[in-house]
């Protein structure tokens, strides 16, 4: 197991259902065969006959096409599929995209040609280790953007007061905005139950041994969660200041919560998280009179790793900072709504243009 955080996989559950993965093999019209794996929650309907599912395709939707050149040399291009799987494999129509990989035969490990010597072949991959997660995150982000949903990924160490803050936030937003919640914890659905008690829909992801949520889990949770158009989605990540920093879930922003009962030097002890966040909530500020915590120092440390980070002092007990926090949320939500309106307008204009073209034919 991981020596650092002990995280692993294979025990992820969404509301008690395990995620199961398996492989599919596809034959394209030109006879090329490729396969990819996909996961689905147990008992969830999924279609094996059609090729138009959106479960992400291979490594970031990438696969290779070998070509034989006139001089007999062979090389292959990798290309990436985004979204729907409509593409043309007819000879001559293939266009390599940026970032294509090359497969060279006859190169030794040191890239030297050594005739007569046994050698493995070199395969260039040049892919980010998180490519798969990032492809799922992109899908989630597009799905949310299409519907004008403003999504936040709330991250902190355990015990910072995330869930209490979230409950108070939902209560304060009642009648003003619709909120849905994805809760991430290693075990139990206690947090989702606390959220549901407010009347907001919530779905619990149990990561099992995993120390963070990933974009694939969130994609499945999005399918199950009743989300209204132009609403808010709050994703409460697993309490952990390390791993969730690296995993994009498709959110608009990460919000890091640092409670004043922790050390003010946390931002430089765990710089990746504070660098990834757009906003820091300094929480439990009602306790400041009883502590030696320096707010100025904490903000200075946070800005050292992330000069652009915004800071709001909050307390779920006294309500301090909630006006600023709710205004910050509304600003982001308004942007998500206006972007959706723009894309709807663009589509309407495009439809009008196409209709005009059709009517003149």
């Amino acid at each position, binding site marked *: *197991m*991981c*020596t*650092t*955080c*002990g*995280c*692993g*996989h294979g025990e992820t559950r969404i509301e008690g259902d395990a995620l199961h993965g398996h492989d599919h093999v596809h034959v394209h019209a030109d006879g090329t065969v*490729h*396969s*990819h794996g996909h996961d689905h929650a147990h008992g969830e309907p999924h279609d094996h006959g059609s090729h138009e599912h959106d479960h992400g395709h*291979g*490594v970031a939707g*990438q*696969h*290779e096409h070998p070509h034989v050149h006139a001089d007999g040399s062979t090389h*292959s291009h*990798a290309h990436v599929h985004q979204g729907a799987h409509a593409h043309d494999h007819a000879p001559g129509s293939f266009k390599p995209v940026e970032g294509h990989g090359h*497969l060279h035969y006859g190169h030794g*490990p040191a890239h030297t040609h050594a005739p007569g010597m046994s050698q*493995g*072949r*070199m*395969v*260039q*991959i*040049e*892919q*980010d*280790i*998180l*490519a*798969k*997660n990032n492809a799922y995150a992109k899908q989630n982000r597009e799905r949310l953007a299409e519907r004008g949903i403003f999504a936040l990924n709330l991250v902190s160490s355990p015990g910072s007061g995330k869930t209490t803050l979230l409950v108070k936030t939902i209560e304060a937003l009642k009648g003003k905005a619709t909120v849905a919640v994805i809760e991430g914890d290693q075990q139990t659905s206690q947090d989702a139950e606390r959220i549901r008690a407010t009347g907001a829909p919530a779905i619990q992801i149990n990561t099992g041994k*995993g*120390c*963070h949520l*990933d974009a694939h889990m969130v994609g499945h949770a999005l399918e199950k969660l009743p989300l209204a158009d132009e609403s808010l989605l709050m994703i409460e990540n697993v309490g952990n200041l*390390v*791993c969730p*920093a*690296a995993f994009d879930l498709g959110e608009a922003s990460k919000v890091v919560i640092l409670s004043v009962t922790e050390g003010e030097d946390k931002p*430089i002890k765990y*710089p*990746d998280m504070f*660098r990834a966040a757009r906003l820091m909530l300094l929480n439990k500020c009602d306790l400041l009179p009883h502590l030696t915590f320096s707010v100025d120092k904490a903000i200075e440390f946070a*800005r*050292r*790793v*992330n*000069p652009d980070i915004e800071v709001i002092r909050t307390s779920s007990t006294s309500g301090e900072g909630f006006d600023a926090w709710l205004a910050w949320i509304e600003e982001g939500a308004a942007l998500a709504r206006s972007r959706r309106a723009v894309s709807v307008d663009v589509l309407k204009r495009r439809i009008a243009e196409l209709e005009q073209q059709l009517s003149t034919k």
Partner: protein
Amino acid sequence: MHEMSLAEGVLQLIEDAARDQGFTAVRTVWVEIGQLSGVEPEAMAFCFDAVSRGTLLEGARLEVVHVAGSGHCYECGRDTELQAVYDACTHCGAVPVHITGGTEMRVKELEVD
């Protein structure tokens, strides 16, 4: 941080490449790890061994290509080395420095059979 998940990410990338390109065993994996990526190369190697058991990576050698942290100083406009994301400019001592390199974690290349 999360080296186990990353090692599993490496395995997935390589398994997919193996399906597409028809190789069945891997001799060497070159992975590029930046100084500022938050990835501990030793923990990565440990986890790589753990996840490779019983897969096409079993017995493969992991070669970590280190990439130094580098940045551009907002204050004096010069390029500077960085050991950590919050380091000050080595020339003028200013913080923060705009990070320009050293955050990568990529599978670069494979030697396969």
